[in-house]
């Protein structure tokens, strides 16, 4: 209730003098809202719903007409996954390794350093300010330097190179969210642990980490999604070996003629992991996205 009543509770001319509206009228208003929201939710999802439909059409049906009935087939999915000899399964595996690798690196770097900054005074506000500033810079600024750096290190077109690039891109977000999460933990627990003789490491590991778990999940989910969805650095730093789905699914367009059915199936499969996260980890996602956006 509370704020949910915000606008609903302030209909025209509401004042204590007004008697409550008849129940039926309120019901109608509620269903009307449902209708309007349903239309908006449908419209913003048209692009992938259309791709989902096409992914079940045979090439003949696709060529025949964009609208109208068709006989559903799974052949496009079979093609994308094994039948047509695309590298798609490998792209998918690359995406998974890059995204999971970036999650691991971001957590390993951000947790201890955010703790050192927030609780032990490392660098004052410097780390937070630098993280926020990096959030502002367009990723393209790092395109040329990263291409040169990865070439020099000999890790161009490797999963490792893309793990590093995506860790770098998402590190600011990780530090911002974890610092905010640390700020909410009452310091008294840690002081008590210190008085009992626990070292900083011990306190971080056994006291702080368990309390921080929800924040860590939020960071992991967001970093996974953003790394999975990266396109620019994949374009610059991979050519065949380390190609992820974002680039691989687009490659279908040029390399095999335009087989729209297969492309649709591949892009639907490629959006599944982030979308599943969106559905099942929604709580973490919403708190993470809005915390990163609206200050703490």
């Amino acid at each position: 209730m509370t704020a949910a009543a915000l606008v609903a509770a302030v209909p025209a001319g509401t004042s204590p003098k007004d008697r409550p509206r008849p129940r039926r009228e309120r019901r109608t208003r509620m269903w009307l809202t449902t209708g309007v929201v349903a239309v908006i939710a449908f419209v913003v999802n048209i692009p992938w719903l259309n791709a989902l439909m096409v992914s079940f059409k045979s090439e003949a049906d696709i060529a025949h007409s964009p609208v109208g009935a068709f006989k559903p087939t799974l052949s496009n999915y079979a093609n994308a996954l094994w039948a047509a000899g695309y590298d798609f399964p490998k792209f998918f595996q690359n995406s998974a390794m890059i995204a999971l690798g970036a999650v691991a690196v971001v957590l390993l770097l951000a947790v201890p350093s955010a703790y050192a900054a927030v609780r032990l005074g490392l660098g004052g506000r410097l780390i937070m300010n630098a993280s926020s500033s990096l959030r502002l810079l367009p990723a393209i600024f790092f395109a040329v330097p990263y291409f040169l750096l990865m070439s020099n290190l000999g890790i161009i077109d490797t999963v490792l190179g893309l793990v590093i690039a995506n860790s770098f891109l998402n590190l600011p977000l990780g530090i911002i969210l974890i610092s905010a999460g640390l700020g909410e933990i009452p310091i008294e627990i840690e002081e008590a642990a210190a008085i009992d003789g626990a070292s900083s490491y011990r306190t971080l590991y056994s006291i702080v980490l368990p309390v921080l778990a929800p924040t860590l999940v939020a960071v992991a989910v967001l970093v996974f999604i953003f790394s999975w969805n990266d396109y620019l650095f994949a374009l610059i730093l991979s050519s065949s070996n380390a190609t992820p789905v974002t680039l691989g699914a687009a490659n279908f367009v040029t390399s095999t003629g335009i087989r729209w059915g297969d492309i649709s199936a591949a892009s639907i499969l490629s959006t599944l992991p982030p979308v599943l996260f969106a559905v099942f980890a929604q709580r973490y996602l919403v708190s993470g996205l809005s915390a990163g956006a609206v200050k703490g």
Partner: protein
Amino acid sequence: MATRGSKVDRSAKWVLGAPLIAFTAMFVVWPVAQGVQTGLYDFTLQNPEITFNGLENFRRVFSLPGFWDAVRFTALFAMVVTAVEAVLGFGLALLMNRRFPGKKLFFTALLLPIMIAPSLLGIMFRLLLNGDIGLAPAVLSALGLDISLFSPGTVVPLLIVLDVLQWTPFVFLIVYSGLQSFPTDVLEAAQIDGAGRLRTLTSLVIPIMKPVIAAAVFLRMIDAIRTFDVIYVLTAGGPGRTTTTLSIFIYKTAFESGDFGLAAAISTVVLLALLPLVPLVVRRIAQPEGSRS
């Protein structure tokens, strides 16, 4: 005991911070330095001889017609999409803030576009808008509208519509989250005073929500300025240069024309242009204690 503890702490902060410091030195500071430095060299893929040429690249940036076209398009695109998405996202947040059947389901549905990789969405847009097999042209021609979606006259509005489809949900999400901590007692007071609906919105809801809306607008603006994926997949910056954002322009200069020196110089110019915004972003994001009451 206490003194020993503080001694451990003094070293602990460096030990715990060391991985980040090492990573930052190698993968942030060095690339930035190299990026700025590359701008001072004549460094192209065609010419293996890398020679220092001072500010020549920077002089060239400002006389490139493509650069100014990209600046104009990027600014126009970012401002229009941000404005439209702010208004629609705010409206949607107010709408979703009511109680109605199916709310949870639609909330999830509204968030899906944010989760889809922009490049994959670009492919889906190509499918949707394809002249031969796309749903959108078929529907348009059934309605008697015969327009070519990717012609120079329509491509910019088209890209704006597509961006609005994907990112209005982002503004919605942030504003909606903000609305959840809206002080309801203020509203009750307004009701008692007999304030009308529109009046409540303009003199209460909007002023109180201003910081949240500003944050959403600011973040959308930053992201719109660096737009790359969807436009690159859909139009590759064309037809001609009509839809070349700064990101696409820099990418093409470096990896299609092979002029690394010039691309680095453009990047540095963009960086310097964005620098005045840094204090703003630092104030907005980096101070969690400001938001707590």
